[in-house]
């Protein structure tokens, strides 16, 4: 069974999303979901194997570090199991899972803000772009540092976004969902998602341009 789940996981990761899944894959996954709904924990474990990469990836992109991504992924699967009985098989399971993931990440970000009293996410390396810039002068592997610096800039830029804009940009530009799929996952309209995406892209551009100009000056 783990082999079958791995096959399904591989297919779900590499096939296009939405309605383009093959019928065979859809039936296999639907069978797993119906068994899990009936309380079969083994089937639920197969579902986790199929979807864990996607959930952990989104959680990391929303929260910005591995530790929080692990906690969020765990919470997502717990909530998924808890509310699986309410899941309508006519729905897209992955869209439903994205929605749970985004909600869990929002909750965790709020909790962290309350505890830390600062920005919702923290950089994986714990360094600001300026710190990385300073290291670049002394590091021989400048290319690697530049890459890390750019990643840090993007992470900081994403940190400046409101939760909904961040979720929209992560799902649309990084996960590659269509505007309609993002709207379903976020529980809003496609027009709202388009507006959120447009605003978020403009903010990220402004943030990145500012740091890139500063680096050129240095």
């Amino acid at each position, binding site marked *: 069974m783990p082999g079958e789940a791995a096959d399904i996981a591989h297919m779900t990761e590499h096939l296009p999303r939405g309605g383009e899944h093959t019928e065979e894959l859809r039936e296999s996954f639907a069978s797993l979901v119906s068994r899990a709904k009936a309380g079969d924990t083994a089937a639920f474990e197969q579902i986790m*194997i199929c979807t864990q990469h996607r959930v*952990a990836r989104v959680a990391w992109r929303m929260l910005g570090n591995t530790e929080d991504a*692990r906690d969020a992924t765990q919470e997502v699967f717990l909530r998924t199991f808890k509310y699986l009985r309410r899941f309508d098989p006519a729905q897209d399971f992955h869209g439903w899972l994205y929605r749970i993931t985004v909600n869990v990440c929002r909750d965790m970000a709020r909790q962290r803000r309350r505890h830390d009293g600062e920005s919702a996410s923290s950089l994986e390396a714990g360094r600001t772009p300026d710190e990385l810039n300073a290291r670049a002068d002394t590091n021989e592997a400048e290319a690697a540092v530049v890459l890390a610096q750019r*990643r840090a800039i993007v992470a900081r830029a994403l940190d400046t976004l409101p939760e909904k804009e961040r979720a929209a940009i992560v799902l649309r530009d*990084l996960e590659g969902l269509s505007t309609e799929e993002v709207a379903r996952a976020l529980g809003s309209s496609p027009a709202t998602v388009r507006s959120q995406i*447009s605003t978020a*892209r403009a903010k990220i551009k402004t943030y*990145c341009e500012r740091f890139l100009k500063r680096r050129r000056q240095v």
Partner: protein
Amino acid sequence: MNCRNIEQLLPLYVEGDLGADENSSVNVHLHSCAACRGISEEYRRSQDLLRLHTPPEFDAAFYAGIRRAVLGEISDAEVARPVFASFLPNLFRAPLTYAASGALLLIVGALAFGIYYSSTTVDRPVSGSTAASNVSTEETGASPKTDQPPDAPAPVIIPQRKSPESHATKYAKAAHSSPPQRPREVLTEQATPQVTAPHIEAADVSVANVMTALTEASDVSDPDSASAEVANAGLTESAPEMLRIELQTSDPNIRIIWLSPKKTDLTTNSTK
């Protein structure tokens, strides 16, 4: 479209999120506007940077730990959950179940009421008030005709009420805290005005009827018709100096007991 309009569309244009018409308008404008073309390039660069936001490669142990923790919590929750908790949510989910529960409650309530009501009517005399009146008359040996003083109260026939929950009945039930056997016991014991007074007071409507009938009966000239009606009333001489008159209504829960000194005007000594 001017540059300002185009600039607002560029964030969506760079990722192909515009409709066909807007997309072609932006294309035409960018062909002729270097400033907007520059902004468009900035958007492309920032979008390329955005795609660098990829997580590290999580290993199998990372995922295995998550699955283990999740399944552990699920099994813990299943163990901790009470047995009835597994079926209770399903039991109360369907609206049909609510209706069935309501119907069941109604049936049980109706059965309980029926049992209670039949138990109260089991001890009712077959011929209603007449049987009880005859018994009490035989026990005392009193003749309604002979022992009756000249101005004795006429026998009373209280009109039968079809509704078992009429005003008088309700008050009578409230006064009778004991089961229906209680009135029969009253017939044989030495009653005192203090004991019987609440009964009379409770059935105030009936008493009023009795009073009216008594007054009218005293003027009745035909003794046969009066004696025929006396048969419906129980006359008991409960004490040497007291005359006890019991009137059994058609409702077994209502019995009017009249106590009066002998050879006195009943209408003046009546207890209301």
